[in-house]
């Protein structure tokens, strides 16, 4: 039986998209020295408000914008706690993640109760096919045999995500803002000594991450699934942190890592579809995560040792 069909590769991309968006958030964050472990929670919150707004406005586009806005605001709030009030950013992130789980189910009940006179525990009945983020068939490419079936027909957010990889590179390496982000991340004293506002750069850094995670959340509730449901992000915000680390913190490397995780999840789904006990299949993505991280860590260590050896010669 062949599991490596075009469908399978298509699903890798589909599954990897939200991970990729969150990974880019992690990449920008780490470059700016902001370890945002709250991506998971931001995705949850954006997923909820994206789907609700799409339903209210009957527009997936406005839903998407609101999801980004919610992501941005939540990230800036994190920044306020972490940079202004000097709370440990890991604790702030943990709080955001808890709100992303418990807070969203609370909110969805309260909001639906107030607006629809019935307390709902998910928004799955609210997002119809018409409110789904549209998918597009790319002319010409869709007609290429095999490849066309894999890379055409995805949601516009998927294409945006891959475009964002390139945009992230441009942002980080070609713009003054990117230079500031990287210098604040590496040596804030050096940055501030030449008049760069460290606080401002950090807010921008975490804000960009919020918007990207917001996009990931919108993808989850308005494309990947039809509507929001409890804990639907299911660890993708954390997997993104692993992907960032595995990719060496660079956009392209991290994108490849996100695809590896997409592959692992797709494999899990595929294998369970063949009738293998789902309990045996469930760990596949996590095992792939652990193995990848170990490989990454070993490589990193080799590199460090080489560098040490080189510097010892001088």
């Amino acid at each position, binding site marked *: 039986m062949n599991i490596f069909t075009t469908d399978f590769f298509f699903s890798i991309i589909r599954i990897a998209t939200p991970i990729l968006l969150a990974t880019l958030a992690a990449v920008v964050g780490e470059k700016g020295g902001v370890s945002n472990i709250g991506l998971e929670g931001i995705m949850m919150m954006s997923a909820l408000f994206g789907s609700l707004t799409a339903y209210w406005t009957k527009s997936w586009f406005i839903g998407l914008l609101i999801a980004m806005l919610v992501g941005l605001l939540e990230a800036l709030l994190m920044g306020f706690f972490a940079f202004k009030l000097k709370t440990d950013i890991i604790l702030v992130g943990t709080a955001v993640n808890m709100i992303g789980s418990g807070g969203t189910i609370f909110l969805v009940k309260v909001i639906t109760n107030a607006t629809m006179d019935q307390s709902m525990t998910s928004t799955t009945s609210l997002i119809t096919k018409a409110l789904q983020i549209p998918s597009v068939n790319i002319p010409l490419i869709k007609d290429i045999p095999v490849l066309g079936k894999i890379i055409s027909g995805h949601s516009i957010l998927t294409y945006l995500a891959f475009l964002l990889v390139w945009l992230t590179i441009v942002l980080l390496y070609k713009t003054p803002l990117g230079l500031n982000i990287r210098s604040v991340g590496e*040596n804030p004293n050096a*940055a501030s000594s030449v008049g760069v506002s460290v606080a401002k750069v950090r807010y921008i850094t975490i804000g960009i991450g919020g918007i990207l995670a917001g996009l990931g959340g919108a993808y989850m509730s308005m494309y990947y699934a039809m509507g929001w449901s409890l804990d639907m992000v299911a660890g993708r915000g954390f997997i993104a942190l692993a992907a960032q680390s595995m990719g060496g913190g660079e956009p392209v490397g991290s994108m490849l890592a996100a695809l590896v995780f997409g592959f692992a999840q797709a494999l899990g789904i595929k294998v369970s579809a063949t009738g293998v006990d789902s309990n045996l299949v469930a760990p596949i993505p996590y095992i792939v995560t652990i193995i990848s991280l170990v490989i990454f860590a070993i490589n990193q260590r080799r590199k460090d040792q080489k560098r040490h050896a080189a510097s010892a010669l001088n």
Partner: protein
Amino acid sequence: MSGEYAIQMKGITKVYPNGTVANQNVNLDVKKGEIHALMGENGAGKSTLMKMLFGLEQPTEGQILVNGEQVHLSSPTVAISKGIGMVHQHFMLVPSLTVAENMVLGMVPTKSGALIDFKKAVEITEEYSKKFNLEVDANAKVMDIPVGMKQKVEILKALVRGAKILILDEPTAVLTSQETTELFKELKNLKTQGYTLIFISHKLNEIMEITDRMTILRGGRSMGIYETKDVTPQEISRLMVGRDVVLKVEKDKAQPGAEVLKVRDVEYVNEWGKKMLDKVSLSVRRGEILGIAGVEGNGQKELVDMLFGFNRPNRGTIEVNGSNIIGLGQREIREKHISLVPEDRMLYGIAGTASIEENLISDRAGSKKLNNGILFNMGAIHKESEQLVKDYTVLCKNAQQAVGSLSGGNIQKVVVAREFSNDPVLIIADQPTRGIDVGATEFIRKKLVELSRSGIAVLLVSADLNEVMELSDSLIIMCGGRIAAYFEDTEDLSDELMGEYMLGIRQQSPEEIRRVCHE
């Protein structure tokens, strides 16, 4: 006459919120186009004075004039706008960025509105590099270039921001001698181009070589402004090094016994390839205090690190009572009954948020006396710590108080109470009384003498001349990672002579120095 001076600092006094007086009524005049040295030992107030000139700190009293115009330097940005640039001792560079990127950080040239104009950045870098004859590789990443080049980048960074007055904070501290020679050539070149340089240092030969005039600071006060050509190194050393108040400590003549600490030919090259310890040999015997004097940064810290297992020498041997201690961990070293009063008490001496009691027993928490293998015997702990608090007159509410809430002197008493009470054979006391009140200082000094007379070997490292001269039975002076002198007796040593050895004007013969090994 406003045209003559680039910088005038008048009657500058700086009192920190905790009451430390860093500068007292200091005047500094720097003429346009000169290289002006700011000299003084560590803690003399050089850095504070320069921080005020660069807007990092504000003076409590006094005024600052730049080119004859009174200014209020509220931040480095203001100082930069007045044409003042600073080359910090710890480089303010971003390692993963290129030299050119570091150069333009905060003032990035752009093209088509949004993107960095890298070509322009490289051009700017190369233009300045050529103009000032400071050779740098604009496209190399900062982490890949040698220290000397990093420093040039720092200088160029200040120049590209329009600095006409450059403050160089101990620029040679991290450089090899070739790099230093090169730097001096470049600095002289800057001077001929009309730039004004303030050169902070405590290295005499460097000062004599490149400066026109100098201001000497001692204990936060100015000892005057001198023309370099008019003063001798001896005079400078006398002005820089000297004792103000002498705190007498009574002590009998030492009766040295068997050798406890034996250090032979220890060499250490630091991670940047600079030799920090060069063939250091010494012995400390039972019942004597061997002092190590010297300006800070001449290898004392590295030596102490070796003795307490924080680092390993590249060469040489270190033995305590005949057994090697190189490569041992701190616990193993403590098991050999070696005690350390660390230089940085807040970092290595105590855990600030833990109680006095917990700090006191931290080196002996595993002893059978204080626990039964699972739980602490709180009664025994209370008893022991209360006794120590009493013996060492630690001023506190009770032994359960957080140690960080005590005054500096009482914190240090907690440290010495622990270090002195665990039956030591060797005590390494590194700056044991730095920054603490007179009462605690006297107490600790007396205790050190008392312990040495009871047969313990004491190695005392101190930048405080007063302290080493008063406490030591014999002493060595370190300069440039080497032992510059050994004195068997401190009785008739003069401050002037000490100063000359400390600053490298004099140097004893290897045979004279070898006497410290008592072979």
